[in-house]
Structure formats: structure tokens, C-alpha cells
């Protein structure tokens, strides 16, 4: 009798009802604004005035159609895409080369170089904005995407060096020995052995940088005013003036700027969470 009571209370305890209540409330709070964003993109212009939070009475795709018919929008998307892909590629390339060297080269000087990189993880690059603006002016890259690539590459390197050096350092030494015996040079070892083996760490670094670069507003806002060089996020800032009365259209653009990253996140949420919190977790 007593035993039965105990197992039953344990079972109820393991249901964690109060915890579920807390988490359900927060899940609702976390998801509601995004629900609101999505459903309103399927409403016709007038319906939002009468039906603000509810599901559309009449579903429509016309907001999306209007958006895709707008060629400016494609240019913004292409720009954001280019910025992310090229910056990430360079961060991974330069970062993995430097990490390969710093994991093997162990002198007092190399430690200094390593710490010089790593300290950049703690310092926001925004502090350098005014000087960077002058540099970009001098290089004549303002109003082009070439003013953004170098900044994002520089910004991504500290974490890349930090994460990749630890990772390369943890690889078993026999691998190099064997390759070296077979006559592979150091550069060949880098691209034939190191790169394939550190792929998980490269993915972490890529995700860590992908979201902030795609979502960055600060540098495009300062460096770019020309229409054809704008990124999606920068284009979003102009919406309010552009179609002030057509809220479903505004929300459609907001949704389209957010959906690629959300979709990517939902398909690989574990590596995303790992990537986005990587900068702060030691080794």
C-alpha cells in the first residue's frame, strides 16, 4: 500500500507539471510575435485593421507575389547572400590556415599572436567604426559590398582562430606523421588531412558568424546608401516610409528577411545552438 503510493507520487513528480506550465507560458510568449508576423503576411491590406491577431479570414498570397515581382528585392537578397557566403568562406579559409599554424607552432611568440587574436572576441568592433569609415573612404569601397567583406572577415577571425586552434590541437599526431612519411608537404597535410577532420568545428564557426552577418544593420547603415548595394536588412529600414499604409506588405518583407535563417535553424537546431554559444564556452 505504502509502496504503491510512493511509486505513484514519483510518477506524478516525474511529469514535472509546474515546470511544463512555466515552459508552456514562455513558449507562447516566445512564439507569439512570430506567429503574428507570419499570419499577417497572408491577409489582404484591409483585413489587418479589423482582424489584428487572428488567422486570416481569407488567405492570400498576393503580398508575396508583389514582393517577388519587385526586382529590387532580389538585388537586396543577392547582396546579403554574397556578403554572408564570401565573408564566411574567407573566415574559414584564413582562420583554418592560422589555426593549423598556431596549433603546431609553440613558441612564446606564437602564444602572443594567439592571444592577440583571442582578445578580439571580447571587444566589439563597433568601437572602430569611425576609423573604419575613413579607411573605407580612402580605399574607395564605400557604397559597395567590398566595404563590408573585410569588416566581417576581421570580426569573425578571433572566434575562428580560438575554436579551430583548439580543435586542430586535439587531432591525433600519428596522422601527420603517417602523411609526412608518405611524402606529403605541410600545405598538403592542411588541405588533405586537417580540413576534412575539422569539419564539425568549421561548421560551428560558420554558424557563429552566419547569423550576426546576415542580421547586421550597423555597417551597411553607415557604409552603404546606394540602392543597388543594399542588404536585405538595410532595405527593411526604408519600409516604413515606402508603404506606410500597407502593413501586410511591410510584414511580408520582414518575414522574408527572417525566414531563411529560421528555416536553416529549424533544420539543424542542435548545431545552431552549439555554434551561437560557442564563443563563450571554453575549448
Amino acid at each position: 500500500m505504502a509502496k504503491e503510493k510512493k511509486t505513484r507520487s514519483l510518477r506524478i513528480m516525474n511529469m514535472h507539471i509546474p515546470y511544463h506550465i512555466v515552459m508552456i507560458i514562455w513558449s507562447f510568449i516566445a512564439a507569439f510575435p512570430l506567429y503574428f508576423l507570419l499570419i499577417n503576411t497572408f491577409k489582404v491590406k484591409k483585413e489587418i485593421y479589423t482582424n489584428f491577431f487572428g488567422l486570416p479570414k481569407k488567405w492570400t498570397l498576393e503580398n508575396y507575389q508583389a514582393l517577388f515581382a519587385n526586382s529590387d528585392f532580389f538585388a537586396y537578397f543577392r547582396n546579403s547572400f554574397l556578403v554572408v557566403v564570401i565573408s564566411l568562406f574567407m573566415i574559414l579559409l584564413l582562420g583554418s590556415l592560422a589555426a593549423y599554424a598556431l596549433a603546431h607552432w609553440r613558441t612564446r611568440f606564437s602564444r602572443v599572436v594567439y592571444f592577440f587574436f583571442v582578445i578580439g572576441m571580447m571587444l566589439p568592433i563597433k568601437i572602430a567604426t569611425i576609423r573604419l569609415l575613413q579607411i573605407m573612404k580612402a580605399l574607395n569601397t564605400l557604397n559597395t559590398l567590398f566595404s563590408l567583406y573585410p569588416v566581417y572577415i576581421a570580426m569573425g577571425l578571433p572566434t575562428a582562430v580560438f575554436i579551430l586552434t583548439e580543435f586542430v590541437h586535439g587531432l591525433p599526431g600519428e596522422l601527420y606523421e603517417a602523411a609526412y612519411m608518405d611524402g606529403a608537404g605541410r600545405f598538403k597535410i592542411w588541405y588533405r588531412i586537417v580540413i576534412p577532420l575539422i569539419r564539425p568545428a568549421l561548421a560551428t564557426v560558420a554558424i557563429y558568424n552566419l547569423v550576426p552577418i546576415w542580421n547586421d544593420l550597423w555597417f551597411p547603415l553607415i557604409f552603404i546608401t546606394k540602392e543597388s548595394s543594399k542588404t536585405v536588412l538595410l532595405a527593411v529600414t526604408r519600409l516604413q516610409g515606402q508603404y506606410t499604409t500597407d502593413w501586410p506588405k511591410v510584414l511580408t518583407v520582414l518575414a522574408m528577411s527572417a525566414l531563411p535563417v529560421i528555416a536553416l535553424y529549424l533544420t539543424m537546431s542542435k548545431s545552431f545552438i552549439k555554434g551561437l554559444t560557442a564563443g563563450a564556452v571554453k575549448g
Partner: protein
Amino acid sequence: MAAKSRTAQAFQGGKSIRPGGFYWMRYVIPALIFYVVFMAYPMLDSVRLSLYEGTAGVRQYVGLANYVRLFTDEVVSKRFWNAFFNNWIFFAYHMILQNALGITFAAILTNRTMRGRQFYQTLIFIPCTVAVLVTGYLFKIMMNPQWTKAPLEAAGLGFLVHIPSGWLGDPGTALSAVSLVSVWQWVGIPTMMFVAAFQGIDDDLIEAASIEGANAWQQFTRIRIPLIVPVIGMVAIMTFVSNFNAFDVVFAMETLDGAPDYSTDLIGTLFYRYGVAGQHPVGIPEPGVGSAISTSIFAMLLCGVVPTLIKTQGKE
């Protein structure tokens, strides 16, 4: 690095397998060039810029005059101290509320026997992947009483509406509203960091404690929290650095001026107005004053980050 890695040993073994001198430098230089030219140098050189006045061409060395203006000039210092104070409030919301929520959620989500943890984790983290600008605009629309008064009152949630100006239009509530939106968005980051930290705790410790008769609350406060102090320190540093860096949320919800009446002006928006765009109504950027602002914040971040690192990261 006391213990040599296996890699290093392997390279030490052969005669030429471990190159000496600066051989490895050729692999580091490309990264170093980008990092120095576009980050380290401009950051340090901003300190020098803060000692000059005027823009390129007519630049003039003025010593500490920009700092004197920033801290004591009637107009400029009023804006600076206002933004500085606002930024501390903004930071306090995150430090206290966001991290308390994060640690609570993490404690819940690391219960082995609880179902649906993966689902909750995924959901909590979604806002972190969306641009601040997007969530800022969204909340701005949702907080507009013109839109939300009728539907919320119909749903019995009339207390969520602030009449007549809305939460964002009232100087007394605007900063809190902006801070809460930012807390809402970023709570996933500390949550996930605390989840990782709690999962790293050795089960034997918890088991030993429960055999000794410690209840769940005692286990939490006496064992789990003390064991994750290094992570709490890291989270505190990240919160500090990122909040004195905030810009987008105010830009999206309250414009560059930190409306209404500068009540949501933060260091980020102030820096943008003085250093990049030019303060209203003159409209001429003052790189010197802007650099003085960023240098002051740089110094403050260092003063906050270094002691916290030393205190919480143990012997290392």
C-alpha cells in the same frame, strides 16, 4: 601549456618535421593582415582620433578637449550622461531579468525525466536567430494602442495596453519597454549556456548530495550554482559587452534620437549621432567626439571585463 599535445610531439620526432623559426608565420599572415588592418588598428587608432577635432583635411590636435566637452559641456554632456545612465538601466534589465530567466529555464530543461525538453529548447532559441531590427519593428507594431487596444480588450488583456501614448510613447515607460523586448529576444543565449554548464556537472555529486538528504533547492543553490560560477562570469561579461553595444533595438523601435525625449537614448545611438550622422540640428558629424565616446566605453568595458574574468575563471 604544460602538457605537450600529441601533435606537437609528432612534429618534434623527426628531423625536419618540425620547422623552426618563423616558418609557420606564412600560414598566419593572411589572417593577421585582415585582423590588424580592419579591426585591431582601427580600434586602437580611434583612441588617437579622439584627440583631434574636425574631419579629414582640416584635422587639428586638441588634446583632451573632446573629453572635456563630452563630460562637462552643457549640451553634449547632458546627452552623454543621459545615454550612459539609460544604458545602465538597459543593462540591469538584462543582467537581472534575462539571466535569472535563463538560469531558471536551464534548471528546468536539464531535468532528465522531463519530456519535451528538446521542443522547448528549440522554441526558446528561435528569437535569437531573427534580426533585432525585425523583432523591434514587430513589437513596435504590436505595442501601438491604435492597433491593439480593441483586440486586446476583447481578449480580456486590456492591461497590456498603455493609453493614450502606448508604452513606447511615454518617456516613463519607453526604456523599460525597449529593454523587455531585448530581454525577450536574447534570453535563449544564457539559457543554452547554462544548459551546457549544468549538463557538465558530474552526476555523482548530485547523487551524493541527495543521499545525504539535500532537497532539490539545496542541490540547486549549494552544488549546481557554485559549480557553474565560471559560466555565470562569462554570461555576465557577454551581457555587459553586448548591452553597451546595443543600437538596433532603439533604432527600430524609437528612432535614432532615442525618442520620446531622449528617454531611450543609449551609448550606441548617441555614438551614431555624434560620430557618424551628425547631431541634430547641426548635422555635421564630429569624429573627435564620436571617438571620445567609443574610447570611454572601450575603457569602461575593459574595466568591467578584466576583473570579472580574473574573479570567475579560477586560477587560469
